[in-house]
């Protein structure tokens, strides 16, 4: 299911439509958004290199980590980054986002290091993170340089939306993301978001801008946030290695698909597995009351064997319409009574059956047709 997320990004945008956008959302209780984000980056970049994706390049807008973090990440996954600098570029909003180093260098109080990390063929330093329009232009320029114009598209990864929201109002950030999504050269875009750093409405704005929202939640909810006892500590320990991964896809036809998986955090990376069986969860959810809410095996077989009294399907008997003026006793003498035993009933099982008399002829008889079929949607 995490696969279908990255596949949607890989397949990219259709002509004349907005590019798919993914929000990866977490909270302090399960702070794994970065791991998921890194996973998506490496998967997407591999498919870019292999030529399997619509986009031909990746622009990483990095606020929270140094460019070398991403280059090392890709190197560790086996990508030869040195030769692929034509396909990945990093807009470095980490090293000097507010231009402090420039200012200090100007006042001669500061010796800027000739830092190899800053000067690299894969990264460009950006110093004006408070200006979303300049950021937008830099992203587009970097991306176009990567794919060298034409009809070719590139993808954008933003780490993270929180930093953008810290430096600029939500309306500017929303405008930037929206413009990026509508740009002809953008294939797909995804970003990281820590939901507990913002008001609910801010998170909602970014979710509205996304076609896919992936949220990470703790496996176990802690009792009232107190880390006091041992039990809570073991839950904390559990939550530090595992979490739930929920994805909500907004499809083109308007339908929404929701899927869930379990995510495991290991030293080497992350793994996605399907959630423990639904039955196990449901068992736990059935409230403990004095009446039996479950069916036994025999009861289920009996239930399955009851033939539903749809008149149009027929059961070999004449259709009776209940005539309220006569009692049932009288009618017994005048008309042959509908046989109690249904000929289709399996004689071995219990005598479960439904006897139905239609009230009057005015009622439409049942039909197999779907009355909505003639609707033209």
């Amino acid at each position, binding site marked *: 299911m995490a696969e279908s997320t990255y596949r949607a990004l890989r397949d990219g945008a259709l002509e004349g439509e907005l590019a798919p956008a993914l929000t990866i959302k977490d909270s302090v209780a399960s702070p794994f958004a970065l791991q998921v984000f890194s996973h998506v980056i490496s998967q997407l970049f591999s498919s870019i290199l292999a030529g399997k994706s619509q986009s031909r390049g990746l622009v990483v807008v990095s606020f929270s980590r140094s460019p*070398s973090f991403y280059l090392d990440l890709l190197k560790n996954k086996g990508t030869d980054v040195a030769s692929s600098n034509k396909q990945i570029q990093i807009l470095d909003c980490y090293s000097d986002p507010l231009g402090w180093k420039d200012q200090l260098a100007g006042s001669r109080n500061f010796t800027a290091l000739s830092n190899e990390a800053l000067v690299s063929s894969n990264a460009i330093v950006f110093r004006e993170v408070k200006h979303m329009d300049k950021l937008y232009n830099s992203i587009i320029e970097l991306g176009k340089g990567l794919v060298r114009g034409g009809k070719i598209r590139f993808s954008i990864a933003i780490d993270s939306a929180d930093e953008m929201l810290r430096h600029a109002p939500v309306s500017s950030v929303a405008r930037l993301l929206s413009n990026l999504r509508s740009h002809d050269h953008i294939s797909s875009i995804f970003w990281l978001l820590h939901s507990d750093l913002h008001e609910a409405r801010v998170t909602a704005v970014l979710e509205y801008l996304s076609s896919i929202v992936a949220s990470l939640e703790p496996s176990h909810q802690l009792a009232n946030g107190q880390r006091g006892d041992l039990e809570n500590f073991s839950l904390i320990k559990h939550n530090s290695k595992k979490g739930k991964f929920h994805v909500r896809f907004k499809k083109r036809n308007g339908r929404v698909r929701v899927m869930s998986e379990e995510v495991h955090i290991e030293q080497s990376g992350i793994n996605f597995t399907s959630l423990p069986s639904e039955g196990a969860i449901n068992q736990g959810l059935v409230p403990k009351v004095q009446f039996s809410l479950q069916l036994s095996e025999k009861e289920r077989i009996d239930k399955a064997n009851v033939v539903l009294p749809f008149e149009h399907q027929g059961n070999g008997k004449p259709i009776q319409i209940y005539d309220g003026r006569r009692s049932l006793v009288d009618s017994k003498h005048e008309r042959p009574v509908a046989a109690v035993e249904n000929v289709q009933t399996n004689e071995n099982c219990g005598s479960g059956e439904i006897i139905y008399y239609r009230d009057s002829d005015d009622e439409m008889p049942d039909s197999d047709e779907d009355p909505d079929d003639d609707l033209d949607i």
Partner: protein
Amino acid sequence: MNQRSSNLLDEALGLDQVIEPWPLRGQVVAIEDQVETSGSFVLHHLLKRSLSPNSSNVTIFIAFSQPFSHYDRILRKLGCNLVSQRDNSRFFFFDMLKLQCPDGDEGITPEGGLIALYGKIHKTISALPEISWKNVSIIIDDLSLMEVAANGSSDYVLDFLHYCRTLTSEFDCSLITLNHEDIYSSEDRPTFFIQMEYLADILIKAEPLATGLATDVHGQLTVSNKGRNKVSNFHFKVKENVVECFYPGRS
């Protein structure tokens, strides 16, 4: 004696084995505490470890909370002489008690405020031989007071912390901060506080016991080491010359 009793904390931080090169290099360590359980002892312990004779570590201490004499007195009891370390250029003390950031522009001028402080730290580290860069620890005591000095602008403090973080990538040094959880607990959304939790590679929380006050145990420490994917929890008792750390049930 010191070695043995602080072992659990050292173990959780990776300081129980070799400390050269500094095991916390390139990492951000955030200490969180409350009024009932002060986390300063963790700061003092890390300072002491960092200035151990077995290592060539350099510490830059940024003090918003107490003057030099306070730390000197405490570290002396722990067996560390800050004056001689300062004279040997292993300990740099930046007294920020009187810092008041200029109003309005929030320190856009590089002459004053947090930008200048960043510049000063950068200059101090650059002046050291390159081989020592990864053995540098920057300690900030404490963040809530830095926020006060910045006229309440948590954004400005976060910007400063971001630049300090770039130092950890640039020089591979470590950044150790102390913040108080209960100051922010009344807020609906303690953004500043939560930001630190996200930034930290190692999170150390000092909290009271769920069962309340006790004479033998002062509180509990929970150390979350993201790099090693390990969470540890144990009790502590702060004594005159040492801090004892032990698992629950064994004083």
